C-alpha cells in the first residue's frame, strides 16, 4: 500500500501546486479589494450589478445552446457510428480535429466566415450580396459547437458501443419496433454517456473567451470574457477572482445536476 502511494507523489505535487494552490489563491483574492484589504465588496458588486448577472445569464444561455446543438448532432452520429463495421476507424477520424490547436482552428473559421472569406465568395457566386457572418451570435455558436462536438460524440459512442447486442435483439424478440427499442433500451442505456458528454461540453462552454472575441467579436460577452478583462485590462484581480469563484460554483452545480443517478432497486 505504501508503495502504491509512492507512485502518486508526482501527480499529487502537481495537483497541490497547479490546482489546489491556485484555487485557494483565487478564493483569497476574491475577498481582497484593489488596495488589498479584506472585503465582501467584490461579491456585492457582482451580485448587485445587472451587467454581471446578465453576463452570467449569457454564459449559461450560450453554453446551454452550444450543448444542445452538439447533443442534437452528436447522438445520431454516435448511434450511426456504433453500427459501422470499422467504427473505431471512423471514430478516430472524428477525434482527429481535437489534436489540432484550438487557436488554429478558430483562425481557420475567420478565413471561412469573414467578409471576403470562402463562404461569402460562394454566396456571391450564386448572385447574392456578401453577408456579415463573422461577429454574429450564430457564428459564435457554430464555431463553439464545432469545437465541442468530438467531446460529446466520444462518451455517447462509448456508452452505445457497450450496449450488449443481445439486449437489442431481446427487445425485437419481445415485439418492440425500432423506435420502441430506441426509446426503451438504447436511450436509457446510453444515458451515462449523454451525461458525461453534457458535462464535457457545458462546463468548458461556460467560460469560453477566445472564441467570443475572435468569432463573436465581443458582441457575446460571457463570464470568461469578463475574467480576462479584469485580469488583463482593468487589473481588478479581486473582482476577476470573484467571477472565477462563481464559475467554479456553476461547474459544481452542473456536475451535481448531471451526476450518475443511483440505480433504482426496490421501489
Amino acid at each position: 500500500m505504501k508503495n502504491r502511494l509512492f507512485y502518486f507523489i508526482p501527480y499529487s505535487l502537481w495537483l497541490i501546486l497547479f490546482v489546489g494552490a491556485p484555487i485557494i489563491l483565487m478564493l483569497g483574492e476574491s475577498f481582497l479589494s484593489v488596495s488589498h484589504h479584506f472585503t465582501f465588496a467584490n461579491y456585492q458588486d457582482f451580485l448587485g450589478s445587472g451587467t454581471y448577472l446578465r453576463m452570467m445569464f449569457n454564459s449559461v444561455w450560450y453554453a446551454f445552446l452550444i450543448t444542445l446543438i452538439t447533443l442534437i448532432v452528436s447522438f445520431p452520429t454516435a448511434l450511426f457510428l456504433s453500427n459501422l463495421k470499422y467504427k473505431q476507424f471512423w471514430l478516430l477520424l472524428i477525434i482527429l480535429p481535437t489534436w489540432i490547436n484550438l487557436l488554429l482552428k478558430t483562425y481557420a473559421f475567420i478565413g471561412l466566415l469573414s467578409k471576403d472569406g470562402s463562404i461569402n465568395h460562394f454566396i456571391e457566386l450564386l448572385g447574392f450580396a456578401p453577408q456579415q457572418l463573422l461577429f454574429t451570435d450564430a457564428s459564435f455558436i457554430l464555431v463553439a459547437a464545432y469545437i465541442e462536438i468530438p467531446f460529446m460524440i466520444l462518451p455517447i459512442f462509448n456508452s452505445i458501443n457497450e450496449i450488449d447486442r443481445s439486449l437489442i435483439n431481446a427487445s425485437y424478440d419481445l415485439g418492440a419496433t425500432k423506435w420502441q427499442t430506441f426509446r426503451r433500451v438504447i436511450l436509457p442505456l446510453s444515458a451515462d454517456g449523454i451525461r458525461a458528454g453534457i458535462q464535457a461540453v457545458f462546463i468548458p462552454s461556460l467560460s469560453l473567451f477566445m472564441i467570443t472575441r475572435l468569432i463573436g467579436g465581443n458582441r457575446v460577452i460571457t463570464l470568461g470574457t469578463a475574467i480576462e478583462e479584469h485580469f488583463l485590462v482593468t487589473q481588478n484581480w479581486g473582482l476577476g477572482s470573484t467571477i472565477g469563484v462563481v464559475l467554479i460554483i456553476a461547474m459544481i452545480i452542473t456536475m451535481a445536476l448531471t451526476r450518475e443517478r443511483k440505480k433504482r432497486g426496490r421501489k
Partner: protein
Amino acid sequence: MTQTIIEFKNVTKSYQETQVLTGVDLTIEAGKFYTLLGPSGSGKTTILRLIAGFSNATSGDIIFDGKRINDVPANKRRVNTVFQNYALFPNMNVFENVAFGMTLKGVNKVQIKEKVTSMLEMVQLAGYADRSIDELSGGQQQRVAIARALANDPEVLLLDEPLSALDYKLRKDMQYELRELQQRLGITFIFVTHDQEEALAMSDWIFVMNEGKILQNGSPVDIYDEPINHFVANFIGESNIIDGVMREDYKVMFAGKEFENVDAGMRPNERVEVVLRPEDLDLTTPENGKLIVTIDAQSFRGDYYEISAHDDDNNEWRIQATNPSVLNSRQGLTFDPEDIHIMRFDESEDDYDARLDNYEE
C-alpha cells in the same frame, strides 16, 4: 395429432466466404422438446437465430405454421428467445423486464400485473418483482429470462445454451424444471446446447449437428444406441470405435475375431466401424471372455470405475465397471450381440433408415 410448426427447406447461411449452414432441412412439430446439439461452430445457434429472425437465410425457405417467414422481422414472429447471457434489461427491474412485451402491446395494467405475478410464480420467483437485475444470482436471472419470454405466450420458445453459465448442481435442477415446464405448458421448445448429457436428459428429439449440417436426428435413445457415424458416436457419450469387416449378415469381424451381431444389409466383407459403449462391456475371467484384454489404468468416478485396457491387437478399450480391477492383469471382455453397433462409412441417415426397413420386419 402432431402438427408441423416450423420447417426448413434447404436453408443455407453464409457470412462472406464462410458457409455456416449447408442445406439444412428440418421439421419441428408443435408441443415437443427439441434440442440442437453440436460443438461450437456447428451452426446450431445460427438455426436458432434464423428462427428468431435475428439473421436472414442466404437461401432456402423457413416455414412457420405453413407460411414462409424469411422476410418477417423478428418483432413480428410468434417465437421468443431465452438468450445465452439472459439479456435482461439492466435499466428495468424484474417486473418491468417480464412486463416488457405486454407493455409494448398496450395490455392494460391490471392484466399485466396478473400475468407477471403468475409468470414469476411459475419460475419460483414470486416476491422478486421489485428487485433490480444486478441483485439477482445467475440462476435467478435465468428464471426471469424464461418468465419474460413466456409472458408473451409464444408458440415456440427458443433457448440458446441457457444453462451453460450455471454451476453443475443448478444446471441439473434447471434441466428438470425446463423439461417439466415444457410438458406442463405444451409449448414447443427448441434448445441449443453443446452438452450431450443435457440433450439426452431433456429432449424428445435431438438434431446432432457438425460443420453446418445435421448429421443425425432422432429420439435420445436412437441417437445414443445407433449413432450413424464416427462423429456422432464420439460426440454422444463415450464410445469404443474399432475398425471391422462385415463378413456377412449378422456376422462381424474385429480385433481378430468373428462375432455374432444384429446388423445386416451390407455388402459381404464390407469395411465398417464397430461401436461398443463402455457401459455395455463387462470384465470376466479370461476363459469366459470373448476378447482378452490387459488392464492399463483405472480411475474411480463415484458411481463406477473407468477402466482403460488394450487387447492383443493393440485396440484401446474403455470399460465402465462397478468393481475395480487389477492393473496389468489379463481379463476377459464380454458383451452381447445387441451391444455391437455397426457404422458404415459415408452412409447418410436416409440410407440408414432404408437399410433398416429392409431387414427389420
